[in-house]
Every structure is written in C-alpha cells, then in structure tokens.
C-alpha cells in the first residue's frame, strides 16, 4: 500500500456541548485524538457517543471548540469539513443504496480534483476484493459486512487525514467484525491514518486502540491508554463483562 497519502493530524475537542431541542446530550467534553493514533470512545447506549461524532462534524447544535490539526473547525459546515481532511462513517453505514458500489466510491471522491481517483478505486478493490466483484451492483443489495467495507472504502476515497467511525461493528457477525478491525489496524499501521472510533464492543475496541475515553451521560467519565482502562476495575465491570 502507498503510505504517503495521509498526513498526520490530530483532533482537539474543548468544552463540547450539544443538544437536540431542549435536551442537552453533551455537557462539556474535552478530549484529544493524537495524530497517527487510534482513539476509541466507549460508553453505554444513550451516553452520547454518536452525538459526539455528529457534534465534531457540525451535524447538530453545538458549542465549544473543535480543532483539526492547527485549524479551528467549530463553525465549519459538515460538507466543508471533508475538505479539511476529516471524514465520518456514520452509524448504520450510510451508503447510498440506489447507487452502484462504484458510484458510491466515486461520490466518496467528490471533493477531489486530482486524476488519481481511478487508481484509488483499484486500490480499495484490491484490499476489499468483494467490492470489486460487486462494483456494478447497487449498494443496497450488499450484505451488512460488505456495506460496512464499502462505507469505509468510500470514506477513504476522500483521502482523509482523520477518520471517524461510528460503531463499525454494529449488526455484523463476529468473524466479519474481527476481519474489519484487522483491516483498520493495518490501515493505521501502514498509512498512519488517525482514527476515532465509537464502539460498544469494548474488548475489541481496547485491543486495537492506543487511547480510550469512556463517556457517561454526556461527560468524559474516564480516560487513559487502552492498557490502563483494560485493567481498571470499573471499566472491567461495566464494559468488559468481567
């Protein structure tokens, strides 16, 4: 794989608030995603994990400061943030069901103006051969695992510097999840792509992440390196099923 595609960049979030109507979901989050690292956000249902990713991308009412690299993106529109190098794979994959696999990838490169787009398609077809086999098939007809691969490949078509993944394991069979996470690790090791992953499957997430945050009721309850959290009795009890 080519490894000079992705630049390093970090994400810094300060005092992030978010609300849906009158309901405040995030109550002042502070966290950082160091460049070239994989960070993970853990938490129970309704803790605000998905909202955190949505708030970072300005998809809901927010206040606070979000810095990508050295740029303040707190007031940048969702579509414009992609051009700043951060791409979000939403929960439930968010593929375009009526578009072919190929068109899904092409639209992923919407922000690019270079002439290496076809090369990138070939590259992701090589890494996810099943997508190549299904290139003219409508995305809606792919299986859950294939759609998740497509969603990730589509996000990577934008050549992001930072990738946000919202529960990539949701609805997938355990073997497929393992395969997918192996690919994430490879991607991070080989390209240095920074990732922030929201995950309910805490075992899996802590195994691959460098750093982890635990969200409870819209606040960061705990944070530390993956090893620290794995050995934390509270985390073990609440999230690791120990």
């Amino acid at each position, binding site marked *: 794989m080519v490894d000079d595609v992705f630049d390093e960049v970090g994400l810094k979030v300060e005092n992030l608030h978010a609300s849906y109507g009158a309901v405040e979901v995030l109550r002042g989050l502070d966290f950082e995603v160091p460049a070239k690292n994989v960070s993970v956000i853990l938490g129970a249902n309704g803790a605000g994990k998905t909202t955190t990713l949505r708030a970072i991308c300005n998809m809901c009412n927010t206040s606070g400061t979000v810095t990508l690299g050295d740029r303040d993106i707190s007031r940048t529109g969702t*579509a414009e943030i992609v051009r700043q190098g951060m791409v979000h794979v939403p929960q439930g994959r*968010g593929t375009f069901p009526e578009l072919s696999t190929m068109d899904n990838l*092409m639209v992923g490169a*919407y922000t690019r103006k270079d002439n290496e787009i076809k090369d990138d398609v070939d590259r992701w077809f090589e890494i996810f051969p099943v997508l190549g086999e299904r290139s003219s098939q409508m995305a809606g007809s792919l299986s859950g695992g294939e759609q998740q691969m497509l969603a990730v490949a589509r996000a990577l078509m934008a050549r992001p510097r930072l990738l946000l993944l919202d529960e990539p394991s949701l609805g997938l069979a355990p073997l497929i999840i393992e395969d997918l996470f192996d690919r994430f690790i490879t991607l991070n090791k080989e390209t240095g792509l920074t990732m922030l992953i929201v995950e309910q499957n805490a075992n899996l997430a802590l195994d691959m992440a460098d750093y982890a945050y635990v969200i409870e009721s819209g606040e960061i309850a705990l944070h530390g390196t993956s090893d620290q959290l794995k050995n934390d009795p509270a985390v073990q009890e609440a999230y690791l099923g120990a």
Partner: protein
Amino acid sequence: MTWNFDILPDFIFNGLSLGAIYGTVALALVLIFKATTLINFATGELAMLGAFLVYVLHMEQGLWLWLSMLIAMALSAGLGILIERSLTRPFDPSDHLPVVLITLGLFLILNAVAGDIWNYQVRILSNPFGKFPSWVPSVGGDRFIEVFGSRLKYQSIGIWVTLALALFILGLILNKTKAGLAFRAVSSNVESARLVGVHTGRTLGFGWAIASAFGTLGAVLVAPQLGGVNPNMMATILIYALAGAALGGLDSLGGAVLGGILVGLIQAVLVTWGGVVVFGQLYMSILQLAAAFVIILITLLFRPSGLFGTRRVERV
C-alpha cells in the same frame, strides 16, 4: 354498444402523445420529489411561465422557435435555482408543510402575475411540429402519415422524438457528470451526501434547474394541443402529471415517464374511446379529469409506492 375498432389507433396515438407530455411534466415533479420528498405544486406554473417566455421570444420578438425554446428552458432553470435558494433552502427540509405551502403560494403568484401581464386569453404559439419539414418525403399528408388506416400526426412523432432526446440528455447529465452523481447521492441519502462533502443546497438547486427546464419543454409541447398558451394552461396537465408520477412511483424517473404515458393512454382509450363505444359518439367528458384522480386513488390504495417506486420497508 358499437365496438368502433377502426378509430382506436387514432385514440392510442393521441393518448401516447399526450401521455409523453404528462411524462415530461411528471419527470419535473419526480426530480424534485426524489431529492426532497416534496411535491412542487408550482411545477406547472413555472412551466407555463416558460411557455410564455417562448411566446415572447418567438411570437413577439421573432426569434427562431427552437432557439426561443432553448433560451426559455435556460431561463426557467435559472428561475428554479433562484426559487430553491431563496424560498425553500431557508426552511427545515424535514418539515414539509411550510415548503409545500410555499410551492402552493408560488403557484397562485405565478398564475396571477402571468394573468396580469398577458391576461387569460389563449394566445397562439407556433407548433414546433406543425408540418413535416420539406426534406421528409411525403407519405400521406404534410401533417401526418397513415398507420393502420389512421392518421399518425407529425406532432405526435415530434413529441416522442423530443422526449426521447431529452431523456437521453438527462441520462447523460445524471450518470456521466459529477453534478449528476452528487444529485443522485443527495436523492439517495442527504446526510451521507453531506458527509462526503457534497454541498446539498447547491445540488438541490441543480435538481430544480433541470426540473424547471423539463417543465418548460412539456408546456411548449402541449401548447398546440390546447390551442396556444394561457396562464391556466398547466392546471389540469399538472394533475395528469401527478397521476402519472403516483402511478409510476414518485421516486422513479423512468416510472414517471411510463406512468405519464399510461395516464395518457387510459384517458384516450378507456375514457374517450370507451365513451364512443358506450354512447356511440364522441362524448368529451369531464371524466378525463376524474380518471386522473381514480388512478391516484387506486395506486395509493393498492400500491402506494407505484409501479416502479422503491417500497419503503420499516424494519423494527
């Protein structure tokens, strides 16, 4: 009852050519519906305004008819972009009522403005397909050819060829251009489109532009059948187009065209020719309009997604 089969081809040809026009207007409706799940009730009046632009450019200013049509389609497209930007984008897209009310208001305003400028008399607009061009060898008359003992009008052939060409160009725009890809992405999933960097507002404006141009094309093609242009010309056409769009499936472009053609056929064959069979004479009936509502009703009752639309499956 007399089964008057020898005049049936006449009715079929007529139904197919009116249906093609309904299909063109239905396409304008569906283009916007696909992207916004919104019925643009101003579609017909925008098209009417486009037809009047052709009237001004061609009949008053003496420009070549086809050039006038192209200019009018381009101006309609610009107006579509302007309306999207100023009247629909400021509103929350998930809340349909305000925007539907706006398109209804626009319907009334455009109709009144056109009425004020041109009053409500029918004004003759040249038929782009009145006579066969002189280079076509004559095989019947200069306005029709004989098929199955009936007259197939040059006008009908012209409408079909124009629609086929317009569909081909639309296909190229949607499938081969970046803006077309973005439009299909927005139609499929707005939020995901934003997440890959598509500016959804501009892309919807693009959809409004194409839809308005298609509407204008439909209005110019239908004008000769109505005796010319007038501010109310599109009111019933819009209802037939809505019936066609509902029948074909509100989110299917191909379905809109086929649905429009089917509505034209149902009108011509079931209602009009059927009337001749039952009453023994041509009985121009208001039932044509009622038939459109019956089609909408039956479709919504038995197949709400239409013949070619996506069935919405709620997974709980």
